[in-house]
């Protein structure tokens, strides 16, 4: 019988922090337990011996430590109660939530007794459970082989991790390979992008821990106990990469010419081609959509590398974590017909200008218009599709376009000082060192006009760019013979697809959403999946590399540390479960899935919120750890100490709300003694019947707090609304129940809300 369990209570004086306010002698006299002792500093190393000896001497089954907040020392005391199971110990928080928030010794002492009693009742309901250790496989999949994916892969490989890069196109390298020149703001000079990329590419190719799959795509993904099973489909290349020596004879004889997408379609390539000079794998590839199947290449190849009968292949890749580096694409210029991109050959994008000015581009680096002449005036239009509130536009700033325009303007000025370059900007955004480069550009006689052009029209041989000069407040028409559009960055198709395949959250703009923009900038909302580069939001090469290496570091943490999980998670009774799938659709944490015709709960993502329990018609789900019983026991433990005329308010908070409540104490603010805070693993676990039970057994008020960022917030808010209606029907005053937002930093607000709620309950009691 649980009532016969031997409970030991350890009171900590906390060097006066507790004992100066709370009369511990009184506490000792008021509690009826097997053992009760009082110590100066229980968390110090002697505490371990004191507690262990008492457990042996008194044959204790359960332990209550009445001291500080479990947020501070729960792990310490879980360790100190060994050989007892760590979950047979509970902490009564008589410091942050008692001695630090109350001055009146008599009332604080009574409250401490109540809190400790609640812990005693609660711990009697505890069972020995083991924490779940998850060790995920070390292998990593990096999806996307651009500058971000390459760096993430390389960083992991150098730490000894096996990495597979899955790249959709025939070569790794991404956008950086075609960018032409890059610049660093400090050097105030532009330098060759390929020359910077190539060493990284070579290093990657030679690293034995990295396997590169090109023409490959993840088409399916499932996760089981921390292992991702990815189905990767590789489209045929029709050229054997082992045999091909990239001599190029095949392309010489190929008669099919199609626009070269790597050159932004500004030049032509053959149907059998190598994407670019330094592409990897170092092999040709056949573009089967355009191949005429004449067989000339096959007959020419001395190496017999051409394999026209290759078929798509699917393979299984098992990894422990995934880095998504699927990158961006550029804004579709058909959405801005007013700029005439689709009508006029000499209206181009910055990306195309990068190809034109690149020495490996269609004009071998010469800035030429479509008629072969050097332009006399180039007008650049910024924010095309960015910072744009009109339909189809993006409200965000694409972040790199100002500096890209500055770079390309400087490149033009260096080579063609007589060509006038005018940049029409919304704001020039060049933070930090980039400002020096902006200044340098101005000194280079690049001109700037503040205004977003409305239209580009062709009049005779020239363009007219119509805009308002918003500094002068004048309407101007600028003549130009080349117009360059700084197009917005948006999530690539690959980014959108992988988000769906892996079921990871995206922002409203379709980028992969980080699990917290401030403090978890590379984690996604799915454990074990990380993001870097422009798949996450617009950023430049430097930021992409930083985020890539950060993602690699996070994967390493995960690989080396393993993950210890609190065992209070959902479990399925497979006998009862009919695999109806209701729980899968209900789970806000995406922890449930069907695997081998059974419901599988991923222990890594289940929070034990209990949402699935309620919706399971078969009652096939339980949450480990007697959560329900513990809540009832805690309520009983508090209410059984209620004195005549005493007001008792029960406050249910999860980890976040509880931390906010601790902060009230840490900052020595106060709230009334009537407030009794009960920590629950999820606020959703406080069921309507708990609330009803508390009200019927002496609670004067119930306060439920939830962090609005919690995925269950809306659900809980809705539920409390229903509970209020329901208890009103049963004759209770619904005003005795309240629901409130809680935030960790906004502890002053929480203190005020608790005080206000106490005042309201006082009024209700008086009215009665």
């Amino acid at each position, binding site marked *: 019988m649980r009532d016969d369990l031997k409970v030991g209570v350890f009171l900590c004086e906390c060097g006066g922090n507790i004992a100066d306010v709370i009369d511990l002698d009184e506490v000792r006299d008021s509690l009826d337990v097997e053992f009760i002792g009082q110590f100066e500093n229980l968390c110090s190393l002697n505490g371990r011996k004191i507690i262990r000896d008492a457990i042996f001497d008194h044959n204790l089954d359960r332990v209550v430590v009445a001291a500080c907040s479990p947020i501070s020392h729960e792990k310490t005391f879980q360790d100190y109660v060994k050989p007892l199971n760590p979950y047979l110990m509970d902490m009564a928080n008589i410091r942050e939530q008692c001695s630090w928030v109350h001055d009146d010794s008599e009332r604080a002492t009574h409250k401490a007794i109540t809190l400790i009693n609640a812990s005693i009742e609660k711990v009697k309901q505890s069972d020995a459970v083991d924490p779940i250790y998850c060790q995920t496989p070390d292998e990593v999949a990096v999806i996307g082989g651009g500058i971000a994916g390459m760096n993430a892969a390389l960083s992991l490989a150098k730490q000894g991790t096996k990495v597979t890069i899955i790249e959709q196109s025939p070569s790794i390298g991404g956008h950086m390979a075609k960018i032409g020149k890059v610049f660093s703001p400090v050097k105030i000079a532009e330098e060759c992008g390929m020359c910077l990329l190539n060493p990284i590419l070579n290093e990657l190719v030679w690293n034995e821990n990295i396997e590169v799959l090109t023409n490959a795509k993840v088409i399916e993904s499932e996760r089981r106990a921390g292992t991702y099973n990815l189905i990767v489909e590789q489209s045929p290349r029709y050229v054997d990469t082992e045999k091909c020596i990239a001599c190029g004879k095949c392309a010489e004889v190929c008669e099919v010419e199609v626009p070269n997408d790597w050159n932004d379609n500004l030049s032509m390539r053959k149907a059998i081609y190598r994407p670019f000079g330094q592409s990897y794998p170092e092999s040709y590839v056949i573009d089967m959509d355009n191949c005429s199947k004449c067989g000339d290449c096959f007959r020419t190849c001395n190496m017999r590398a051409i394999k026209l009968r290759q078929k798509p292949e699917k393979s299984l890749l098992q990894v422990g974590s995934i880095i998504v580096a699927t990158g961006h694409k550029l804004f579709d210029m058909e959405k*801005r017909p007013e700029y005439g991109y689709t009508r006029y050959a000499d209206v181009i994008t910055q990306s195309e200008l990068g190809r034109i000015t690149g020495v490996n581009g269609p004009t071998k680096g010469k800035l030429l218009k479509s008629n072969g002449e050097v332009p006399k005036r180039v007008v650049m239009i910024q924010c095309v599709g960015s910072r744009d509130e009109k*339909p189809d536009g993006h409200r965000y700033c694409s972040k790199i376009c100002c500096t890209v325009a500055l770079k390309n303007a400087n490149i033009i000025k260096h080579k063609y000082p007589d060509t006038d370059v005018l940049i029409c900007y919304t704001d020039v955004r060049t933070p930090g060192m980039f400002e020096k480069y902006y200044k340098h550009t101005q000194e280079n006689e690049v001109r700037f006009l503040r205004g977003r052009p409305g239209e580009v*029209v062709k009049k005779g041989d020239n363009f007219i760019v119509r805009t308002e000069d918003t500094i002068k407040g004048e309407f101007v028409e600028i003549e130009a013979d080349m117009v360059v559009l700084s197009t917005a960055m948006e999530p690539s198709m690959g980014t959108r697809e992988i988000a769906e395949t892996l079921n990871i959250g995206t922002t409203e703009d379709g980028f992969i959403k980080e699990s917290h923009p401030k403090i978890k900038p590379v984690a996604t909302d799915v454990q074990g999946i990380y993001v870097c580069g422009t798949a996450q939001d617009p950023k430049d090469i430097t930021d992409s590399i930083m985020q890539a290496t950060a993602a690699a570091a996070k994967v390493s943490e995960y690989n080396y540390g393993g993950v210890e999980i609190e065992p209070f998670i959902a479990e399925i009774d497979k006998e009862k479960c009919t695999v109806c799938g209701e729980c899968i659709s209900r789970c806000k944490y995406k922890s449930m899935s069907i695997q081998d015709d059974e419901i599988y709960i991923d222990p890594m993502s289940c929070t034990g919120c209990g949402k699935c329990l309620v919706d399971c018609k078969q009652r096939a789900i339980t949450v480990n750890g007697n959560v329900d019983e513990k809540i009832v026991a805690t309520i009983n433990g508090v209410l059984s100490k209620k004195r005549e005329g005493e007001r008792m308010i029960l406050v249910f908070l999860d980890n976040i709300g509880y931390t906010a409540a601790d902060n009230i104490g840490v900052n020595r603010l106060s709230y009334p003694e009537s407030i009794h805070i009960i920590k629950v693993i999820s606020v959703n676990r406080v069921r309507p019947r708990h609330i009803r039970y508390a009200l019927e057994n002496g609670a004067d008020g119930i306060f439920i707090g939830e962090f609005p960022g919690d995925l269950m917030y809306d659900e809980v808010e809705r539920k409390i609304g229903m509970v209020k209606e329901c208890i009103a029907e049963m004759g209770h005053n619904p005003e005795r129940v309240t629901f409130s937002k809680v935030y960790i930093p906004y502890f002053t607000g929480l203190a005020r809300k608790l005080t206000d709620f106490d005042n309201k309950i006082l009024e209700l009691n008086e009215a009665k």
Partner: protein
Amino acid sequence: MKEIPDKNILLFRSCLVSVEYPGVEASTKFVFDKLGVDYAISEKQTCCTGLGHYSDVFDQLSTSAIGARNFRIAKDLDRPNLVMMCATCYAINKKSVKLLNNKDELREKINNLFDENGLGHLKYEKDELKPTENIFHVVDILYNKIDEIPDKIKYDLSDYTIATHHGCHYCKVHYEDTVGGVRDPHILDDIIGACGCETIGWYDHKRATCGTGFRQRYSNPELSFSATADKMNAICDEDVDIMVHLCPNCHIQFDRYQHLIADREKRKFRAIHLNIAQFVALAMGGDLDKVIGAKAHTVPIDSVIKDLKEVEK
């Protein structure tokens, strides 16, 4: 695309259409009849207030109250789909429905005013109509029937050079409901395409305003007419014969003032101006006087439209 009805339609009369170009209404009815669209007109319906509203004569309260009254008329006739011939009526009524649904205070105030004045039967209930599902322009209805138009075409107008002018209050106010493009509006071009004609498509200033700006035409004529002139010069450069409109405000600005702007620009402009309903009606064989209402036009229609040739079937 949004769901577009072809029945239970109240064809919403426009004051500008009635006063300036009655042929637009006659043509709309003609085309609707040909296409089997179920519509009716109500004598009780009043002006949407648009011209007065945009000239600061009527405030939003009066405008929404008038809207509520007109919506009640439509509901009582069991014709909850209001279809406008004028882009101003379209934008005004869409806004009124949005406000009446979403601004509880405004709706209650208007309903109280109705009560106080013995007009309780006009009261509007939240979400009685939906801005997207109940408020349309004639072009929406024609676009919905675009596949049925080719069969009904009698005359071949494909030899004329045709440009379109899409009214701001159709394209630029309630973006989310605009059919056929906002940045590059082409709903008129598509409907004209269904009549067997190809328009010139994009032209300089295609998306620009006609210049009317409601009272701007009178209080700020220099600005108003220079906007119109830009557009007229652009269509003149393209040798346009017929400019097709969807809003009587724009129609007036071009048709009534074309000769004045020609004097101002010292240039001869020759385009005639037709509403899309007039254009489709003309192609379907509508009589120039009785249906198209040619006599109401300032730039004579017969200066361009001569000797119509029938399509070869």
